């Protein structure tokens, strides 16, 4: 046997015994694969209908940007944020409900639908002063003064102690009002619990000796484990990791911060004891949301004359003349970010901007679809959605004073494009002058996924 043969034989021996650290759950993987494929087919079947119907609906809508002069080179197609084409058939598997603002649409107009969690949550045990809540079919109890933060995707929820958070914010604001530094106020960990739901579990490696390290018996779960330990941040409090795998279903990974000492431990125990599944694993898998039912935004593909093509980490795009690289927020050579601006593009002293950020996080921020959210059909993209609308930057929605004059209408929007090859996703965001819908559509028509 030659040296090479010996070496490769050794390699093969090592590889034969090698396994990835996390075993796969074939049933969950298969279920997700089937589901994604079915919803995709629903879109493919309905795409032609959407294209035809859009011609009719376009004329039926009064566009908020009507009356403003279109940008040079723009067409008259509706912007995704201002009009909607009929929804294609909704996947029979998704639990969908009309979007909240459907009543504002002309009677009889089909509207896109958004996924609503179909489960009603009843925790197994609810201590006094606590409430039942839940995520993706798994109920738990939390203190009733905790509230949930809006999240970008159904897979991630986050609850936090609003009283503690407000107290902290008030202390910082008071310090600043007194002429001090709000950041100098001692930071206290706000008790919170976030959860990631997926086909695999995640847990942070404990950095200190565990105060709880316990397997749990949760009906319907084949794995459940509670880990509580002190943080290595030096801040007071406890870190919680609660991982549950439903038999034939998904992983639920809870991570959070709890009050220090016995109080935090008791809360962790109460949360663990409250866990209860509201349905079987297959039932929950069948109820997962999909955004594939969103209407498709039909676009003219290609690079308009005079535009310049660019690439950011495999996303091809093009921009019209006048746009410059914006180095005020990002390094010009930042591999994952492309930032552009058009000086005074929106108004004198207010630039247009466009930013592309490539990311490969564990989940893709699929913003909850609204009436105006549409799909983009891009080769080699697994999923692509876009939304935009116009807003007055001269009015501070928080009631404060804006530095811009009232009537500074800006078109803001974003597109999220997921590579089908698993190479991450891109978040494209922009702010442009009012009436730039046609320009946005031209820009979106230049997007390509590259190897």
């Amino acid at each position, binding site marked *: 046997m030659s040296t090479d043969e010996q070496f490769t034989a050794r390699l*093969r021996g090592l*590889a034969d015994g090698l396994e*990835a650290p996390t*075993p796969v759950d074939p049933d969950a993987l298969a279920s997700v*694969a089937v589901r994604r494929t079915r919803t995709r087919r629903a879109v493919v079947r309905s795409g032609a209908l959407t294209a035809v119907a859009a011609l009719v609906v376009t004329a039926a809508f009064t566009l908020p940007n009507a009356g403003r002069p279109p940008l040079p080179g723009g067409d008259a197609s509706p912007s995704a944020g201002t009009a909607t084409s009929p929804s294609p058939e909704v996947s029979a598997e998704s639990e969908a409900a009309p979007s909240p603002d459907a009543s504002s649409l002309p009677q009889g107009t089909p509207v896109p639908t958004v996924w609503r969690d179909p489960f009603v949550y009843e925790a197994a045990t609810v201590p006094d002063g606590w409430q039942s809540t839940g995520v993706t079919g798994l109920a738990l109890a939390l203190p009733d003064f905790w509230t949930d933060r809006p999240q970008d995707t159904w897979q991630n929820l986050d609850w936090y102690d609003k009283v503690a958070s407000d107290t902290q914010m008030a202390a910082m604001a008071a310090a600043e009002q007194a002429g001090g530094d709000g950041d100098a106020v001692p930071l206290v960990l706000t008790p919170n619990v976030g959860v990631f739901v997926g086909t695999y579990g995640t847990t942070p490696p404990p950095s200190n000796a565990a105060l709880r390290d316990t397997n749990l018996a949760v009906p319907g779960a084949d794995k459940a484990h509670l880990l509580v330990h002190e943080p290595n941040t030096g801040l007071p409090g406890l870190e919680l990791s609660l*991982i549950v795998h439903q038999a034939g279903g998904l992983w639920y990974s809870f*991570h959070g911060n709890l009050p220090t000492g016995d109080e935090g431990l008791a809360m962790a125990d109460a949360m663990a004891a409250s866990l209860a599944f509201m349905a079987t694993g297959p039932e929950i898998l069948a109820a997962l949301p999909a955004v594939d039912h969103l209407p498709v935004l039909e676009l003219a593909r290609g690079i308009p004359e005079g535009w310049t093509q660019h690439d950011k980490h495999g996303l091809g795009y093009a921009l019209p003349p006048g746009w410059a690289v914006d180095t005020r927020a990002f390094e010009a050579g930042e591999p994952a970010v492309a930032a552009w601006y058009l000086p005074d593009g929106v108004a004198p002293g207010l630039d247009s901007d466009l930013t592309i950020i490539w990311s*490969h996080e564990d989940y893709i921020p699929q913003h909850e679809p609204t009436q105006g959210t549409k799909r983009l059909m891009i080769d*080699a993209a697994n999923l692509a959605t876009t939304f935009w609308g116009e807003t007055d930057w001269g009015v501070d929605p928080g009631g404060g004073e804006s530095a811009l004059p009232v009537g500074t209408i800006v078109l803001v929007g974003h597109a999220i494009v997921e590579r089908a090859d698993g190479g991450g996703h891109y978040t494209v965001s922009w702010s442009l002058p009012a009436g730039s819908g046609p320009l946005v559509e031209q820009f979106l028509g230049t997007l390509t996924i590259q190897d």
Partner: protein
Amino acid sequence: MPPPALSADRSPAPRVEVIRTGSTAVDDFTAFARAHAAGLHRIAYLLCGDDHRAHDLTQLALERTFRAWPRVGDGNPFAYARQVLSTARIDGWRRTRRETTVSPDDLPGLTEDRPDATSGVDDRERLVRALRLVPVKQRRVVVLRYLLDRSEQDVAAELGISSGTVKSQGARGLARLRQLLTEEDA
């Protein structure tokens, strides 16, 4: 640019027995996933060296396979799924979350019954680390040709490259791997 066309026909890998007893495509596919998800996951892990990414790749391969099930279900779906893995993008992975994936068997308190699996673990971890440092194209060939013991012709067909390229990429990748492992030994 659309992803490269995949053809199950050009892979002469062993055929997978699919027994049909009036079952549906979903039943057949689920049975296939149960039989082969772990194997696909292992290949994915060898290719990318990252547990999260391997999981995503396995999901991608299964999704594509089910999408093509009417064509490949009666043929060699494993070869098709492996080809998806082999040609998917395996670089560019950037970990942004601090969490690490946990195995149910690695959950504290669940490891007592496991047989001693420490033997060879260090070497395997070194192999995975070293593979990640081999350029992607070379790594694909090394994994398929040498670690999975596929023929030059099979690897060429699977990756859509010539046998000569397989030979040259494999030789360079193997040399690089040997160098990396030797450096670690030193």
